[in-house]
């Protein structure tokens, strides 16, 4: 999981291709947004040019030609009950409606944002005071407050504009405050304060640029409403007063003629509809560009199973693979999992093979972005698609290839024969269900027994993971438990159906050391008691030496070294492994200058030819970067991906 996130950040970091697109370019890529932009620009243009266009006077009455239908000669869209030209009136009306909407938006956004940013930045009493008064405005149904204001000020376009602007202030204030609060607490504001910048300086040079996207997003959602609502007030006769006309008041007048001359009411409404659709389309597009969550493509629904390259979606009978190695419960062969993001392909897992032997504990070690978590998630098809896709390889469990297996097949195995324990137990448990229910759910899914029995089993599991007062704690919600307790619940969930394999993805990284020691001890004992196989993903060699029998080291999507934990830790072969073990200060050893690895790991969408570590390696030679380096066995059960080691040079 954490891995996938890193890949997303990696992609942002690489300001090269997809993310190098300017906001403008990204805006243009969305066709609907372009349509919206077109509509809005057209309306703006026509409104601006209205005085220059060869239009009849919109207020010139001609009773002889009243209520002409559209397409009448001389009056393209017909005339109204006073014989005034509809087209001309529509264009002039649009001009009024549009400018009223824009001015109201400007007033509301400036006043509201100011309230919001000040409340958010200063917090405390001032925040309370400002936001409570804003809440008072919100306590009125939206339109009603506008009506009350118009009632007091009297009908008229300016008063309607005013009323609409006031009732929209709370939206800006609340949205802006929300972001301002979180930004004001973030470290860069603290840093500015530490550096002695004045409050007003921080407000306007540090904070404002960072809340600007929210202001723009709020504008884009409210400007449509404001146009609708001012039109509404005019429709009720409380806005524009004759002879001045906006689209709303035209609609209101036309309403009386709805049966005899439907065009008089329907046309202005249609114009409003098209205008507001245009604004909303443009607004949606702007939001896609400005909202950071949408930007990184996170608002795409992940499928229930990772996509598989069509070539691998083999027919069912072919999936019975004969790699019936009795020695292994799980055999992974040449697995490749890629992320397709825009035009870039991130090779997160790039040709990984391994064997999991019954009862053993295999560690996968690597830094963020090395592909260790994606490897783990690929096994049960849990890598998010899009953007993930399994490109090639096989995952062989019980003589069956799981790559390309149907969702039903996988669902029968997931949580049953092969289970997961994830990193952060706060986010990986459903906050709205009690922990007992969440364990019971796994049991219900895979076992057919009575509710009573399931409950007993659930309590028993909680006891097995050493949760005190199991009966009471079963009724607790995740947020009511401590981090260590939550992770125990996660482990209980993984153990529920007596699995063969547990895949633990950094299960103790989010925990404190003393709690980590507890949980590692628990995992170790349970594993040995039950003889399960464990696939343990971690970044910490210390943890590896606690729990793993064998270990693979991953770097940039590839396994660079594999062997027994003892051998790899005590006499690492690959230069990366050596340096990785070396660069962590050790408790037991005397202090010395630690040798950091220079530079950064390569982005997996832009891998160098040859060895991915060569750039950072002290032993690298020209040949390292000229050829594909294969992983070779140095002795039985020990392999390394380095030509210089294979040749015995280092």
């Amino acid at each position: 999981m954490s891995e996938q996130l890193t890949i997303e950040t990696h992609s942002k970091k690489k300001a090269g291709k997809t993310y190098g697109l300017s906001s403008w370019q990204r805006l243009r890529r969305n066709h609907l947004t372009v349509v919206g932009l077109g509509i809005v620009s057209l309306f703006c243009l026509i409104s601006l040019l209205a005085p220059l266009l060869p239009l009849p006077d919109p207020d010139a009455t001609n009773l002889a030609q009243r209520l002409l239908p559209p397409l009448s000669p001389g009056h393209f869209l017909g005339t109204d009950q006073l014989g005034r030209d509809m087209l001309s009136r529509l264009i002039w009306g649009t001009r009024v409606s549009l400018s009223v909407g824009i001015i109201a938006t400007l007033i509301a956004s400036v006043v509201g944002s100011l309230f919001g940013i000040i409340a958010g930045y200063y917090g405390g009493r001032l925040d309370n005071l400002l936001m409570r008064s804003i809440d008072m405005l919100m306590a009125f149904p939206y339109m009603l407050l506008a009506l009350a204001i118009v009632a007091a000020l009297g009908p008229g376009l300016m008063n309607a504009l005013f009323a609409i602007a006031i009732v929209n202030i709370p939206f800006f204030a609340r949205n802006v405050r929300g972001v301002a609060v979180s930004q004001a607490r973030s470290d860069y504001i603290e840093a500015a304060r530490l550096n002695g910048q004045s409050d007003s300086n921080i407000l306007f040079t540090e904070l404002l640029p960072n809340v600007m996207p929210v202001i723009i997003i709020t504008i884009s959602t409210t400007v449509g409403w404001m146009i609708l609502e001012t039109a509404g007030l005019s429709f009720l006769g409380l806005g524009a007063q004759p002879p001045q006309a906006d689209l709303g008041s035209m609609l209101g007048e036309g309403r009386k003629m709805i049966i005899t001359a439907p065009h008089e009411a329907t046309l202005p409404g249609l114009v409003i509809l098209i205008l507001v659709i245009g604004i909303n389309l443009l607004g949606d597009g702007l939001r896609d560009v400005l909202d950071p969550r949408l930007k990184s493509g996170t608002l795409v629904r992940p499928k229930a199973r990772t996509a598989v390259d069509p070539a691998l979606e083999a027919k069912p009978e072919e999936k019975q693979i004969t790699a019936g190695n009795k020695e292994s419960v799980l055999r992974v062969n040449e697995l490749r999992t890629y992320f397709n993001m825009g035009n870039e392909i991130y090779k997160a897992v790039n040709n990984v093979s391994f064997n999991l032997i019954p009862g053993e504990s295999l560690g996968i070690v690597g830094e963020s972005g090395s592909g260790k978590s994606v490897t783990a998630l690929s096994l049960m098809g849990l890598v998010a698609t899009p953007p993930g896709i399994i490109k090639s390889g096989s995952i062989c469990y019980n003589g069956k290839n799981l790559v390309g297996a149907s969702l039903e097949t996988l669902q029968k195995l997931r949580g049953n024969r092969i289970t997961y324990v994830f990193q952060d137990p706060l986010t990986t448990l459903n906050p709205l269900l009690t922990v007992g229910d969440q364990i019971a759910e796994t049991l219900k899914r895979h076992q057919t027994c009575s509710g009573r029995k399931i409950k007993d089993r659930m309590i028993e599991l909680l006891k097995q993971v050493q949760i005190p007062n199991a009966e009471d704690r079963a009724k607790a919600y995740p947020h009511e438990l401590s981090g260590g307790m939550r992770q125990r619940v996660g482990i209980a969930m993984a153990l529920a159906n007596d699995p063969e394999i547990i895949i633990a993805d950094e299960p103790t990284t989010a925990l404190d050391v003393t709690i980590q020691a507890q949980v590692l001890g628990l995992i170790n004992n349970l594993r040995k008691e039950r003889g399960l196989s464990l696939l343990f993903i971690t970044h910490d060699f210390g943890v590896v030496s606690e729990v793993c029998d064998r270990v693979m080291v991953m770097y940039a999507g590839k396994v660079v070294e594999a062997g027994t934990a003892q051998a790899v830790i005590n006499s690492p072969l690959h230069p990366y492994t050596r340096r990785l073990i070396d660069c962590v200060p050790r408790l037991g050893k005397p202090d010395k200058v630690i040798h950091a690895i220079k530079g950064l790991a390569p982005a997996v969408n832009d891998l160098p030819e040859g060895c991915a570590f060569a750039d950072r390696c002290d032993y690298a030679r020209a040949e390292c970067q000229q050829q594909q380096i294969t992983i070779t066995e140095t002795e039985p059960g020990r392999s390394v991906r380095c030509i210089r080691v294979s040749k015995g040079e280092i």
Partner: protein
Amino acid sequence: MEPDNHLVVKNVVKHYPIRKGLFSKIVGNVHAVDGVSFQIDRGKTFGLVGESGCGKSTLARLLMSLEPLSGGQILYKGQDISRFSKKHIFEIRRKMQLIFQDPYSSLNPRKSIGHSIEAPLVTHGIAANRKERRELVTQMMDEVGLDVEQFKRYPHEFSGGQRQRVCIARAMILEPEFVLCDEPVSALDVSIQAQVINLLCNLQKKRNVTYFFISHDLNVVKHISDVVAVMYLGRIVELAPKNVLYKRPLHPYSQALISSAPEVNLKQKKKRTVLTGDVPSPIDPPKGCHFCTRCRYVEKKCTNEPSPELIEVEHNHFVRCWLY
């Protein structure tokens, strides 16, 4: 001894009131920092370890005058900075800087990194003009290992390690005498951690800065510190020169903490004391010794009597436990 003390912290207390109900009545206090005293010598590194929620970050905020104290004193070169006026705090901040934990949130995403590094120079009116300032910035960037070409780049174009270098440059550009590092490497990958640690060590040698280094990672603290303090539930339970502390921890909590840290060593599996249970809530800490709920040597005295003071059991080795 006295004149060498760069920073002296005396019995510092920070309580956050918990308000409840309609009238925001104070119903209790979070005892975030509960009587902490120590001193740091010039040019040395004082390491503070503790698990999450032990109050180490609150202590950091108090030291940086980001929050008012509930009690106690913080003496910087003999001056009580906790009573300082705004203007004095502004001046003292030239000498005291902070490096944050999260290099992602500590840089303004809409400001180029060059401008972020330059900002302290501007507010403190150092350097006569823009050109001089730029020169200082480029020197600093060079010193922390950033490419000067990257002046105009924005934080999102950098990796975590590089961002942390930017933060270090920003903190160091005013040539502070005291730098507080609040978990500066916890968010980084191990291979990058080492780079940043080395950078901090080099800067210390060159500039004779005092570090106050907070971390939950015992390995890192041991590597960088001269003196290490162990904090538990708002109190320092043990304080000693690092080699003494790591070799012969006296407080039961320090013992458990040090033995819990996973070690890369398969030849001899160490015997470990695994603590049971969780840390109690700082809202309602145990009476007496704060560690009494999880301690294996617990006696009646520990729970009944008020907690013992931090006492010097041997030269420079302080422990807060009835056993000594």
